[in-house]
């Protein structure tokens, strides 16, 4: 690569924005990428109101406030990580982030989870949701209350038996290239589901491992696990999770090739997952 990879961090001056920076920092440290911390401000559309709502005063004040917020964001970036801040205007936040990722030729968009869910760790907000159904680059989601670890020590790859898993494996190969990190390949099985037995899953994971070993260059242990539960959520709970790991998952088969579209299983995983999740497109946008 001629220039270091860069990640767009979806920032807002809330806990969610700080979690995004924390995850962005952890990922950047793992891969040597740079951060583009982006604050998206809403571009007014003409509001049909008796008193013009699109007053220029407001845009100016909002811009000043945005710059102030970004100054604070900069202070949150972990030492040793290169980051730049960007104030951008767009009609919707997810649209603005996707444009920024296109503009910066970014490799990933990092976003915090919404705060609204009381019980679940991830309750995906509208911004993350918009990204999870349209982003051309992988989207990394920080769970609620995420604090960056010293170092990411394990990458888990949640993999299904349906066709298309090779693309996910390829992105695992790419990210773990020459890294000192453990890899774990998991399959989640709903035991009530009549179609899949766990033996099939075990065999499939061996195929996966062979595929990876033929290509990968990570310098850590490799393991496989099949988790069962009456629901996907239960299966997730059954596994052990380290505070310093991240999970990769592929897109739904419904996704158009170069965009991500979170599948039903991944969506349910999100509800129980205590660690960051990265959703990748079925076909990488760039080699």
């Amino acid at each position: 690569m001629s220039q270091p990879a860069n990640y767009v961090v979806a920032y807002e001056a809330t806990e969610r924005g700080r979690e995004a920076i924390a995850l962005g920092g952890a990922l950047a440290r793992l891969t040597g990428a740079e951060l583009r911390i982006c604050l998206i401000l809403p571009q007014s559309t003409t509001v049909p109101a008796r008193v013009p709502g699109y007053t220029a005063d407001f845009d100016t004040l909002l811009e000043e406030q945005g710059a102030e917020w970004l100054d604070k964001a900069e202070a949150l970036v972990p030492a040793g990580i290169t980051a730049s801040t960007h104030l951008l205007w767009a009609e919707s936040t997810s649209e603005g982030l996707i444009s920024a990722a296109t503009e910066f030729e970014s490799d990933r968009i990092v976003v915090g989870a919404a705060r609204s869910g009381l019980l679940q760790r991830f309750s995906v907000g509208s911004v993350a949701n918009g990204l999870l159904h349209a982003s051309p680059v992988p989207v990394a989601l920080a769970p609620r209350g995420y604090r960056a670890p010293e170092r990411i020590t394990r990458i888990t790859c949640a993999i299904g038996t349906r066709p298309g898993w090779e693309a996910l494996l390829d992105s695992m190969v790419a990210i773990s290239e020459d890294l000192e990190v453990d890899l774990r390949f998991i399959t989640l099985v709903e035991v009530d589901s009549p179609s899949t037995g766990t033996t099939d899953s075990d065999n499939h994971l061996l195929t996966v491992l062979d595929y990876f070993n033929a290509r990968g260059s990570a310098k850590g242990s490799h393991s496989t696990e099949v988790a069962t539960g009456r629901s996907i959520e239960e299966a997730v709970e059954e596994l052990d999770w380290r505070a310093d790991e991240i999970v990769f998952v592929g897109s739904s088969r419904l996704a158009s090739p170069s965009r991500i579209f979170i599948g039903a299983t991944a969506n349910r995983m999100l509800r129980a997952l205590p660690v960051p999740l990265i959703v990748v497109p079925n076909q990488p946008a760039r080699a």
Partner: protein
Amino acid sequence: MTEKPTGRPVPLASSSPGTDENSGLSPKGLSAGSVGLLGATVIGISCIAPAYTLTASLGPTAAAVGTQMPGIFLVGFLPMLLVALGYRELNNAMPDSGTSFTWATRAFGPWLGWLGGWGLIVATVVVLSNLAGVAVDFLYLALAQVFGDPSLADLAANIPINIGTCLVFMVAACYISYRGMETTKAVQYILVAFQLIVLVWFSVAAIGQVAAGTAFDALAFDPNWFNPFAVESFSAFAAGVSLSIFIFWGWDVTLTMNEETKDPETTPGRAATLTVGIIFALYILVAVACLMFAGIGSGEFGLGNADIQGNVFAALAGPVMGPFAILMSLAVLSSSAASLQSTFVGPARTMLAMGHYRAFPDRFASISPRFKSPSFATIIAAVVAWGFYAVMRVLSNDVLTDTILTLGMMICFYYGVTALACVWYFRKEAFTSVRSFFFRFLAPLVGGVILAVIFTTTMIDSIDPEYGSGSNIGGVGLVFILGLVLLLTGVVLMFVMRAVNPSFFRGDTLKKGIATHDKGASAVRHHDR
């Protein structure tokens, strides 16, 4: 794209040429070049919300000027036009300002600027309560029509239920506004089309009933209705014009839309013309139809009946449209609910600006980090509007009529201040060109003076306890007391603010300036926070 690189070296991504066009990232402010003539006209009509405006103003206007209503509607547009021309000049000269508060402060300095902003806030807060009040009435009317149970409509007359329902509307609209959500274009188009169809339907049905001899109190059409000078007294004329300002309120928005239109040179002007053409045709059709059908007597459905004045369509839609009256209920309900939500934005942003420049306490300047909307100011607008409504509901015989009359005065006040601010700001440029003379001097001056005269006249007339709904406190008209209390509260708060934090009043935060011939806006702003 606005970028703020930090001190650290950033190898910027070498973006391929042409990405800017479709990138969706653009400079701050409005999405440029997205609105065409039709879109701008729809926005203009949405701003005015004709179904709501007519139901709220027909009664009070008929009470003031009788059959001369169509003529008053025509003449009432004149001051609005003159002031809007001044607005456009201010908007072009000070592109980073956009409300009466900033404009008036820059022209006249902090004191009048503060009052200009206050006038705008008060007017919008009053209209919020009126909008919510109309929505409440039509909600119960619509329920009664849907379930065929007239007793449901009477629930609106129950004060606690009415105030409670109003609170629900306020909270919902405030929440939507706080979240920074906006009505989509498609919804705007549908709402506008629906209002226009229903209002024309209503008028045709009313005139049809007159022709068939089934009208309530048929009045033969008379071309003299269009003569505004046949109004019996200047007081009545002033009251009528004050109400007409209200019915065209929002039209100026089309004229000041610039960058977001596909062709900023011609689109705003054409859209403003088309909007006012449609609105004129509609208002006159509805006014004439109502006069012909119901007359101005004080009978059950007469426009002179104090009981129906504040909300004419609620009373007339049934007898005029029969089973289709539900459509009118839905048209007014949707128009007032949509307007309620969008109207929050104006006062909230003005309060935010006032907070930022230290004209209001700092808290007003807070912006929600999540939704990027004025958080505290939006909530305050809702609380005050609802509180105002609740008090008025208890005090007034006819809350809607009295709030509309008060509103007319408040709009005259802040539009007047803004128009005169325009004259003063451009005073050195006034005689440099013919164009300048007309648009920056003569038009706003005449407009401002008309509004000042109307404001003063209605203020004095409203002392009469019989003014408006006839509500009074100690023999003094409620509308006068309201107007006075609202403005005096402003003056008191202004002095309190001056005592607590004088920086705005010393001109530290927002400087007074004047347009000079060689450079557009010479005013300088400082933000030493």
